[in-house]
């Protein structure tokens, strides 16, 4: 294979996952938390695809597609929750919205 070894892709994925995890743990806006989760999911996808290339087996790519579909579903639900919170005049701050009550 031309170019970098698979290990370099895995390092990039690890860095991305760390960045995403930091975002989820530190930011307070639920929108940014959702975006950071997307970064983490994409880091996992990058590892799956890197290993699929390494093994010469397409199963990893199929899994990555399934992850993409789940991520799309998660965004739909997450954004629905955020819009519902905004409509009920709940402050959009993950530290304050801690009670799960209708």
């Amino acid at each position, binding site marked *: 294979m031309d170019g970098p070894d698979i290990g370099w892709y895995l390092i990039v994925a690890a860095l991305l996952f760390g960045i995403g995890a930091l975002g989820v743990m530190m930011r*307070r806006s639920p929108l*940014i938390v959702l975006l950071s989760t997307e970064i983490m999911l994409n880091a996992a996808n990058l590892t799956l695809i890197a290993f699929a290339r390494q093994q010469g087996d397409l199963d990893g790519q199929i899994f990555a*597609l399934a992850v993409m579909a789940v991520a799309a579903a998660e965004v739909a639900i997450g954004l629905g929750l955020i819009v519902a919170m905004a409509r009920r005049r709940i402050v959009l701050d993950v530290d304050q919205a801690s009670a799960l009550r209708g």
Partner: protein
Amino acid sequence: MSNVLVWIIWFLAAGGCLATGVAVVSVTNPFYSALALIGNLASLAVLYLLLAAEFLAAAQVLVYAGAVMVMFLFVVAYLGGRADAPWAGGPPLLRAAAVVAAAALLVEVVVVVGLAWGDNLQEPAEVSDSFGSPAEIGELFVTSHLLAFEITSIVLLVAAIGGVVLGTTPEKEEAE
């Protein structure tokens, strides 16, 4: 494609990917965060192309950078100023703990990758030109991975219904 050219493209894509990732997490305005994530997804698609995942790279740009992020930008536009929350929460101790936890995750992964590097990460399998093409992925989806395909469609259907239910205002609230 020559080796040097691949390395250059890899560096640009990986650098862009990490820089936009940092931007997503650090920028205060959610609108710019969402825009940075589009850049992040696009540079990831370049990395996917280098890993012979052509169909996934196309799906990434179409589904993620296209459809999902448009949804995000609509919600950011709908919320307007209400989308801005303080940058970080909790006492300083919690924030420091978050940094330590993220760094620990990173170090763990890097150590594991480093340990495996010499043994089995260096010689990737030989793959044909059609590896990762839409035809091969599609064939796998309707043969050995049919169940995963069907479950994915159910997940998406449930999410779509859930999104509609969450977005509908209850009648008693409209009366208020």
